[in-house]
């Protein structure tokens, strides 16, 4: 199967090792790498409640951390000659991911291997690679 376009979906708990793995995979496959960081309002509200912070403060930190992850990945991708496209959106992870898969004609999804990823796995129409 030909994987021309991968979509890496990130959330606030992603660690940097997943970035390296995604870049290496795209380098090996000579694929384009679309990277999407999704800020889920429910998670932000929950975190704000748990940490006794304002939602606005948590959202600001989450967004800045998201952009940092995206640009860290981009820096590594450039070093490795991998084409990237960076995206950050607020919304439901599943819905936003599906919209991107359709809009950019993605061939496969890259996600962090964890329990919550099952909801994407179940509803996805394209292959999923857990990193």
């Amino acid at each position, binding site marked *: 199967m030909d994987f021309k376009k991968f979509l890496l979906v990130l959330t606030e708990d992603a660690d940097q090792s997943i970035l390296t793995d995604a870049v290496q995979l795209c380098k090996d496959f000579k694929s384009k790498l679309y990277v999407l960081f999704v800020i889920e309002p429910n998670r932000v509200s929950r975190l704000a409640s748990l940490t006794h912070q304002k939602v606005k403060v948590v959202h600001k930190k989450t967004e*800045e951390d998201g*952009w*940092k992850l*995206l*640009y860290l990945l981009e*820096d590594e991708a*450039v070093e490795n*000659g991998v084409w*990237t*496209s960076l995206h950050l959106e607020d919304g439901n992870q599943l819905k936003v991911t599906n919209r991107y898969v359709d809009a950019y004609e993605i061939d496969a999804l890259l996600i962090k291997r964890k329990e919550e990823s099952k909801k994407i796995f179940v509803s996805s129409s394209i292959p999923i690679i857990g990193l």
Partner: protein
Amino acid sequence: MELKISEYLKLEAIIMDIKAKEKIAAIDELVEHMVAKKLVRDGKAFIKALAKRENLESTGIGDGIAIPHARTDAVQDLIFAFARSPEGIDFSSIDGKPSHIIFLIASPEGKKSEYIMALAKLSRLLRKHPVRELLRDAKNPKEIMEIIRKNEE
């Protein structure tokens, strides 16, 4: 200490109406301007570093914004520049729209964390629709500076 865009963007690094009509010409014009203002020491190396990125990604982030950027020792410190294009320039944006506001960022190779932080701060700032509108309507470089100062938290 928190990084402030307004502390790194100099008035002399702001072009209110850029003449260039396409991406590489716009980058050339911005860099030449920065060299003329002695903000960049090696214009050719700087353009080469920016062009390398432009070939590997779209720095047009949508909503009329482009953020060409690079890490290169052609600059001595973290540096920002701003240009505005009334007609818009094709930066191969993710939404297919022309870019009217162009922010250029560069840092020396060894200042990766500052560079990433600067990109994150700027991207967050420019996601705000009112900020984009204000920047498009600003009349002079001082207004641009003031908008950024007021809106970065």
